[in-house]
């Protein structure tokens, strides 16, 4: 499973996308998510697709890896396409198979919705592919800093987020280790009836929970031992700073959007 799911995975690199400030990436990508919904003709969709392709090329991550990595999403995209194909009844009939009629409007609707979907998934997975989880949490902490004024515990939330992100691989590793140990003792996670398989999970979950609780306790102790007491007076090791590359990126992004809004009808 680990081998084909790339959503949320980080691929270290030195491309210009990797070098961008995470705040720049987050703001542009989230605004892109909204902007995708404004596309309404071939030209504007084409322009956004071109932009996404350029981003992928800039990231220097191999395209087959990305396309294969979003396998689960492909099913969803194809499913939406087929659904729209059969349900929408607009425009002239293109094809008639016994009782099923396929309309032109259905094809167009299906294509646009799936393209929209694909662009969203591609661009947002580029964010996590080129930004380490630590950078993402740092950026979130910075971006939400104004909320501190209304007593939202931004620092604590960001810390919780970074700790949970930090422990995902650890827990996965632990899961794999324990499932291997239990498989060696004859547990079969893959075959058998649904009931059998549900029972097979118990020997996996119990040790996993125990070690997670132990780990949490140890982590809390280690943090206290090193004098952690919340955000008060805390400075940062890596400060986020906008550099020239960020200003260039933002400028380009604005220009791309201006062109986009002139292309759409």
């Amino acid at each position, binding site marked *: 499973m680990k081998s084909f799911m790339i959503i949320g995975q980080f691929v270290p690199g030195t491309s210009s996308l990797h070098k961008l400030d995470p705040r720049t990436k987050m703001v542009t990508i989230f605004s892109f998510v909204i902007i995708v919904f404004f596309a309404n003709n071939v030209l504007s969709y084409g322009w956004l697709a071109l932009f996404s392709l350029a981003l992928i090329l800039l990231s220097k991550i191999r395209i087959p890896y990305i396309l294969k990595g979003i396998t689960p999403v492909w099913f969803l995209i194809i499913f939406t396409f087929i659904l729209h194909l059969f349900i929408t009844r607009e425009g002239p009939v293109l094809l008639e198979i016994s009782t099923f009629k396929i309309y032109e409007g259905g094809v167009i609707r299906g294509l646009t919705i799936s393209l929209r979907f694909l662009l969203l998934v591609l661009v947002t997975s580029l964010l996590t592919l080129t930004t380490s989880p630590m950078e993402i949490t740092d950026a979130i902490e910075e971006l939400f800093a104004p909320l501190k004024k209304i007593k939202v515990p931004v620092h604590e939330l960001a810390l919780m987020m970074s700790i949970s992100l930090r422990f995902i691989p650890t827990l996965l590793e632990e899961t794999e*280790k324990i499932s291997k140990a239990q498989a060696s003792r004859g547990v079969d996670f893959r075959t058998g009836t649904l009931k059998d398989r549900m029972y097979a999970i118990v020997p996996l979950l119990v040790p996993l929970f125990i070690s997670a609780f132990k780990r949490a306790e140890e982590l809390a102790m280690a943090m206290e031992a090193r004098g952690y007491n919340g955000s008060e007076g805390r400075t940062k090791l890596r400060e986020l700073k906008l550099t020239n590359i960020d200003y260039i990126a933002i400028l380009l992004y604005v220009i791309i959007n201006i062109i986009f809004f002139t292309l759409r009808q």
Partner: protein
Amino acid sequence: MDIQFKQVSYTYQPHTPFAYQAIRNINLSISSGEYIAIVGHTGSGKSTLLQHINGLLLPTDGEVQIGEYILSSNNKRQDLRKLREKVGIVFQYPEHQLFEETVEKDISFGPHNFGIPKDEISKRVLSSIEKVELQTNFLEKSPFELSGGQMRRVAIAGVLAMEPEVLILDEPTAGLDPKGQIDIMKMFYQLHQSKQMTTILVTHQMDHALKYADRIIVLANGEVYMEGNPEEIFSKTNQLQEVNLDVPEILTLIQDFNQRFNGTIRYQRQSIAELAKEIVEHFRENKRL
């Protein structure tokens, strides 16, 4: 059961930027009843290698033969349960796999999965808790109220209760106190001798490899670096240092002693006390001369 590796390679997460070849082109044969030690630096591929022996990993290239089972990359998902019953693995920190309410239930978990009849299971539970030197009143306790060392023994008993023909030990002494280490290693050695169990020990402790193994396999960077009996392996000091492995202290001591005092002491798996006697003997004889 004889075990054979024929040009086995294994790659983690192939066809991704994270692809990592952990072992490459391994050729090995281990005969039934041997005590093998696999040593190597961290990341040399030891754990990957031993997970091939009960089919937890299937080779990306080449094939592994264990008794009548042949494992290779194009294997369809076959029923590996029979194989796993015969190959018991004691993983690193095996106490992390405990989950049942009582020690007894946890030990019988393995045999139960392999469909052993009930009365046979209770016999095995008793004999295996004896083998790991715990009292029978532990059977009713929860494994989580035991100390770390006791939990380790319970987990080992759980593997022994499967009565495997091949026993794989992945650093079984890690994190134990010195006495616990000696006890556990002795216990495995006795089991090996009394049951003619094929034993494969993965270890960082060269003393253990020297003391118990018939043959040592040195892995480095995913390949077999050296192979031979302990005396042979540990005489190649320079080659060992190249892959960051040490020669056991007792051997360096004997070597230095022989050089300095013209001694003729040979290492024959003697303990420290026995060695001391030999040294005394040596000085007595030399005085008489």
